[in-house]
């Protein structure tokens, strides 16, 4: 018989709270309300029989077992604040059980309490709305924090490259499609494996100027021509890198050609300063191709191989992993 009355109470709550949701037009509000109900209704039976039944404060709807098996103090609180008998078919909203201060506790028995009940429900709704907004503010503040630190990193990276350019080296900068570092002067100095062939620098700069003026199709042609003329040139690794990038930004993009360009760079110039970036880009290309496994492999490799360096590819890989995996 006790079970029966519990069922009545529970269904009564659903009936009562149902129309409440209708007052609220916004869809996401209704969701919040529904969650709230999902959280608290299971605790109602506990009100009738404290201790025998309980739920997690943040009810897990998918847990078939939680209701009778797990016990949690949260469910008992309503039993003391709101005796089940005074709760039943009157106006008290289900969501009130936990969040309400006891002052507001007495559920209106009938008639005269109606306006009090309405006020009470409105307060509930406001509290839930504030909580939801609070969550959004917290999340956005966190995003801003992250963006700030990223933009600082980018600035430092850019600054490094600009000052290097001032020192007279040929530098590619202003990478349009992504924030990854671009071929820097170190490409030559660090590897030291090739010296400039006469005319090579001009050809490279010519091709690169096309990138800067966003003539990507022409830039592809120019870099291809460059690699035919100077396959072992000092700027060959940079040209491969740029081709990889360009194949991604041309319309339609050519993922496979991009993959080949980056792979070539990685295989032929594993010690090139662009290697981490190429590896990161390969991760991205594989992701775009739908090969999540391979993508993750490359990104993980960037982190494990270059994690101790200050390569921007590492942070980019982390961010990409965090965002997509």
């Amino acid at each position: 018989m006790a079970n029966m009355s519990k069922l009545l109470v529970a269904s009564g709550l659903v009936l009562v709270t149902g129309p409440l949701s209708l007052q609220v037009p916004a869809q996401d509000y209704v969701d919040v309300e529904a969650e709230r109900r999902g959280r608290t209704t299971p605790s109602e039976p506990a009100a009738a029989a404290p201790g025998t039944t309980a739920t997690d404060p943040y009810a897990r709807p998918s847990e078939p077992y939680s209701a009778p098996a797990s016990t949690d103090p949260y469910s008992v609180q309503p039993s003391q604040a709101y005796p089940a008998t005074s709760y039943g078919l009157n106006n008290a909203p289900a969501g009130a059980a936990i969040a309400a201060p006891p002052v507001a506790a007495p559920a209106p028995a009938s008639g005269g309490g109606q306006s009090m009940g309405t006020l009470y429900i409105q307060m509930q709704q406001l509290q839930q709305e504030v909580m939801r907004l609070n969550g959004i503010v917290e999340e956005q503040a966190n995003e801003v924090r992250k963006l700030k630190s990223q933009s600082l990193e980018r600035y430092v990276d850019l600054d490094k490259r600009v000052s290097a350019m001032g020192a007279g080296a040929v530098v590619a900068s202003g990478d349009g499609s992504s924030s990854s570092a671009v071929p820097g002067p170190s490409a030559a100095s660090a590897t030291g494996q090739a010296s400039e062939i006469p005319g090579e620098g001009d050809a490279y700069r010519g091709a690169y100027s096309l990138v800067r003026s966003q003539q990507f199709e022409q830039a592809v042609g120019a870099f291809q021509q460059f690699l035919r003329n100077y396959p072992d040139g000092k700027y060959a690794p940079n040209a491969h890198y740029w081709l990889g990038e360009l194949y991604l930004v041309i319309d339609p993009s050519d993922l496979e050609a991009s993959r080949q360009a980056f792979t070539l760079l990685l295989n032929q110039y594993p010690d090139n300063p662009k290697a981490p970036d190429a590896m990161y880009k390969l991760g991205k290309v594989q992701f775009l191709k739908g090969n999540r496994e391979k993508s993750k492999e490359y990104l993980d490799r960037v982190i494990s191989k270059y994690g101790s360096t200050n390569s921007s590819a590492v942070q980019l890989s982390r961010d990409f992993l965090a965002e997509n995996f």
Partner: protein
Amino acid sequence: MKRLILAIVPLLFALAALGARAELTIEITQGMDNPTAIAVVPFAWQGPGTAPEDIAWVVDSDLARSGQFSPVSRSDMLGRPSTQNDIFYRDWRAIESEYLLIGRVSAQGTQMRIEYELYDVLRQKQAHKGVEVGSVNEARMLSHRVSDAIYQKLTGIRGAFATRLLYVSVTRVPGGKDYYRLTLADSDGARPIVLLESREPVMAPGWSPDGTQISYVSFESGRPAIYRQNLSTGAREQLTNFKGLNGAPAWSPDGNTMAMVLSKDGSPDIYLMNLMTKKLTRITRHYAIDTEPTWMPDGRSLMFTSDRGGRPQIYRYDLRTGTTERVTFEGGYNARARVAQDGRNVVLVHQQNGQFHIALLDLVTNRLQVLTSTQLDESPSIAPNGSMVLYGTKHAGRGILAAVSVDGGVKFRLPSRDGDVREPAWSPYMSR
């Protein structure tokens, strides 16, 4: 209706379980890719009669459970040396054992003495030797100390085998009230002792930082109250009896303060109780649910779960500045945090694709890594050396304990023979 079904399902084992002790057994489900091979030779017994405990077997099991070792099967051993002179290294090279542990056990009255030696098979050198002395009754604990020493020698990390667990088990009684038991067991689930048996719920067990006392919530008075209990004297003290909720006690690292959740002033909020004066300080004040407090190891701040942002997330309260900041941002549900002794790794319950998993949050990199593939995981508790996480989960429809290493590489289950087991609490290091 629901109650009726639930009453029928556990009928069989509930009957079988009455009176039985909820001992845990261990099944290793996933180990490391490249564990160290070690041969733990049965220790020579030098006392009268037969040995009270197979010390070497306890050590063998401990090392296997860590996932970082693959002990050589006894049937593969070509000899059973117990002293250095008896060792033929080629026998152990032949079975590809990298290390060899031998030992001798003697007893005098109620005291026993374990002498053990660890050898590096490839270098043919002694790597470590040690002695454990203690009561015969504590033979298993002495064995775990041997395991601790070997583990530390070979991994560089302090072992956590000579520690204990608290957990709650529930035995369903068809048509009647369930039995709740608060059990204390060794870290391998052996030697369970029921500390409290009640027909009313028992929950949220926890440890004092020195491992001599425990805290828990019991409904035995008809409503929730927080108790603390001295493990050696059995003395028990009721700390709270407030209206509403009294829950989630958490001892501060210095042992002087207990954080708890009370709803006496409205919605559930976090309070601190000075354990000497019993004076209460309210530290959160919000109409949302603030619960599950846990201390940072430096005692300067607390983590807790709150849905003040609309969904349960972990927040951190700084005791000096009184400020609260949100800690978790990934996913729509992060709750019940526990912080490792390094103050960096946090384990918590994280919802992903509608399932509840245990995840590890690195407070330095802010990376969150899901550790478990089981569902409905709850109540993570981290080993004092930070290597393993024990948690409650469901397996074959029953509540069991399971463990996972903090890198996710090693997994094992500790199924109970009866009842549903939940809310494990791993002890701190035990003082001798």
